[in-house]
């Protein structure tokens, strides 16, 4: 079943993705197909099976607590559209 327009719009808002009006139905249909696959997975009995956190059956390697990075601020700031006084500038956001 296709995902309804309202839900598609809500998901787009959460993901900050612009979806044009013409494509909403198509996106809804395709998300619906994904959910069908999820339904299929959910129909399988998983009792006693631990949830998989990662497809690789490996464990994480940790690093020692050492400072290995140096200041490369000017290089990074140069990539930003706007900056001043060592700060990245973005359109004003207020809670």
């Amino acid at each position, binding site marked *: 079943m296709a995902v309804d327009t309202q839900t598609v719009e*809500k998901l787009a*808002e*959460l*993901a*900050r993705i612009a979806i044009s009006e013409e494509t909403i139905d198509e996106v809804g249909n395709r998300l619906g197909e994904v959910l069908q696959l999820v339904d299929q997975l959910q129909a399988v009995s998983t009792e006693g099976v631990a*949830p998989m*956190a*990662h497809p*690789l059956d*490996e*464990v*994480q*390697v*940790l*690093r*020692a*607590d*050492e*400072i*290995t*990075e140096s*200041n*490369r*601020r000017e290089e*990074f*700031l140069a990539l930003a559209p*706007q900056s*001043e*006084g*060592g*700060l*990245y*500038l*973005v*359109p*004003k*956001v*207020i*809670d």
Partner: protein
Amino acid sequence: MEWEIVIGLEVHVQLATKSKLFSGASTRFGAAPNTQACAVDLAMPGTLPVPNEEAFRHAVMFGLAMNAEIGRRSVFERKNYFYPDLPKGYQTTQLAQPIVGPGEIEIHLEDGSSKKVRLHHAHLEEDAGKSLHETIFETHGHGMSGIDLNRAGTPLIEIVSEPDMRSAAEAVAYLKKIHSIVTYLGISDGDMSQGSMRCDANVSVRLKGEEKLGTRAEIKNINSFRFVEKAIVVEAQRQIDLIEDGGSVVQETRLYDSDKNETRSMRSKEVANDYRYFPCPDLLPVELSEDYVETVRSRLPELPDAKYARFQSEYSLSAYDADQLTQERAVADYFETVAKESGEPKLAANWVMGELAALLNREELPIERSPVSAEQLAGLIARITDNTISSKIAKQVFEAMAAGEGDADAVIEKRGLKQVSDTGAIEKMVDEVIAASPAQVENYRKAEEAKRPKMMGYFVGQIMKASKGQANPQMINKILKEKLDALL
């Protein structure tokens, strides 16, 4: 109607690691903006996080101190939301399998009673950067926010309690307990004013006896112990007034305004929180061996509860004194040095909680920078117990020590404050005062026996004055009584 307040706290504690949770950038406080934000922290394409072992060790230490289950296998998840100070578009955190599971601690209240508070869990996560909204930028004026990402990626543990607290005072006691545990462990400086420890309070009210929890409001980012107390009191009252006026509490996030002493609703979110958590594909599950956990356990320092019990048994301190003296490790260490060196634990406790605390408060100094060292205070107490000086004179000596005039002995010597314990000298002063006070002597003679001890106060005061406070009070009392009674 009798209302009950129900409180649960979420406490964020910044861990004292040298480098960040997932990168080798420095976490040092106060650096110039963005000088400690590396490619990983900035979410540059192609970078991968590698977790910091020390952050895990800190989290395990905390879990063990909270008598909690340790998540030997923990998993990082992505919490998705958009904000400019979160470059990745998600916060790497833990949800279903956190590093610290359920636990329990005991909090001590002002009246000497204790209470257990359950820990729901604690998890590791990264901090966000900082947004500066007030700065006026030369090139862009008011219309822009500045972003400093030095803090982005700093390791935090978020500590989530069960809703077990029933008053603002209990919430503060719990918060203080968390503060003392993390500072005892040395895993955080716990400095609330610099944001190393931040607190969100979930507050609801219900009628006493009711089982079901009321609708809660979450008060965000309260940055001092005092404000936690005030914010909870004012928020609970708001909810009670609302319900008593026939309204109902809305589940929402509120901000505490300390200037106005009120909470107010934060933006009503256009879209309800939906963080769409999922396991972070960039990070594998972290597994810690039993050996690892046991090694951490074996290296834990003595914790506040153990010290609290030991101070009562070893030094015969009251529960209240023991609690006050063990909240901060540095204070406990200071007290213990004074107690051991002077051999007078009770006096040591009184001085540390009295004169010393007042001095540090006045000078706004932490005990680590006390102008009077523990050894110096022990030296002063020794002069009280060997009757070189009276307690009253000792306060004067203490002030001189605080002003940098040297050890107790040097001050006593230099200022000539040695207590007069010479029988002849005291007898002479007693005789003079008696001779100069015929009316008082007459009254004393005529008074009933039971009233006489109280009437001695006048003479003692005069003699003390004559001796500039330096005569030994016990000797004055003894000699004076003998001489007055001889006149009966």
